[in-house]
């Protein structure tokens, strides 16, 4: 598995995401937002959390226009994988690679705590290591995680079994408690919780590492 982790000005989870991929056996390349190309042979792009461009205009809006995101769009159109976490999820919705939008938390507060997620589908290479209905304890840290989608879009996500994770409690007011969604081809996942922050037994649990191991199992080890 060859992973490319993007760094934008204001990213702060890029290094942790790289380590989580490496621990799952991936060969990781770090990519700068001004790069125009992904490394040859990239299987999956990691779009990390943080505060790209200081969240100016809307979270992820400016990063979505950066040169590397054009390359990510082409990669995804060719059937490549992408994982967007937190600000990365916001960036993927702003680029239109995932449906919906992330609005300000309904409680207006920055929420920073470990939450219990329900794995809503195991039918993806990100979630295959779980059974649908399993729970996972994974931290969230965001101010704009209130997932919003119109009724038609929500119906489509449900019909196509594309809701990957839901919160077991109301964390941010998200529609139907949605914490993560998949693309139509199930190869792009966006999620607000941080699995890379729950991928080391010494640092707050390992529930998140299931996701990286699932990917490693699906994508041949590089």
């Amino acid at each position: 598995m060859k992973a490319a982790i993007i760094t934008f000005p204001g990213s702060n989870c890029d290094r942790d995401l790289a380590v989580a991929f490496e621990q799952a056996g991936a060969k990781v390349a770090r990519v700068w937002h001004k790069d125009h190309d992904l490394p040859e042979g990239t299987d999956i792009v990691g779009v990390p959390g943080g505060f790209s461009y200081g969240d100016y205009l809307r979270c992820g809006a400016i990063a979505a226009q950066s040169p590397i995101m054009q390359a990510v769009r082409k990669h995804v159109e060719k059937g490549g994988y992408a994982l967007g976490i937190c600000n990365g999820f916001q960036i993927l919705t702003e680029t239109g690679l995932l449906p919906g939008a992330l609005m300000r938390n309904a409680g207006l507060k920055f929420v920073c705590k470990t939450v219990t997620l329900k794995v809503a589908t195991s039918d993806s290479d990100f979630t295959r290591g779980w059974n649908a209905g399993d729970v996972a304890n994974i931290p969230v840290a965001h101010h704009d995680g209130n997932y919003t989608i119109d009724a038609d879009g929500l119906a489509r996500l449900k019909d196509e079994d594309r809701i990957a994770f839901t919160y077991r409690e109301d964390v941010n007011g998200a529609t139907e408690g949605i914490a993560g969604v998949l693309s139509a081809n199930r190869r792009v996942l966006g999620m607000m919780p941080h699995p890379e922050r729950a991928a080391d037994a010494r640092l707050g649990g390992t529930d998140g590492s299931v996701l990286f191991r699932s990917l490693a199992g699906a994508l041949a080890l590089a």
Partner: protein
Amino acid sequence: MKARVHVMLKDGVLDPQGEAVRHALGTLGFQGVNGVRQGKVIELDLVATDRAAAEAEVKVMCEKLLANTVIEKYSVEIA
């Protein structure tokens, strides 16, 4: 030529910030406020001199960047 873009959440999209402002106004004694919606105003200083062309171009800017049309609506004033 100047353009002013108003970006607002679409009707029906809950605006938690607007609701917090409404609540705070109530605390200040303004009891007559039924609802508050909060948005953005973006002012652009344009090179264009043709009004219609400028308006068309700013609308493209709104679609591509200034508004997220999943949740927001916009209007453009050319001055």
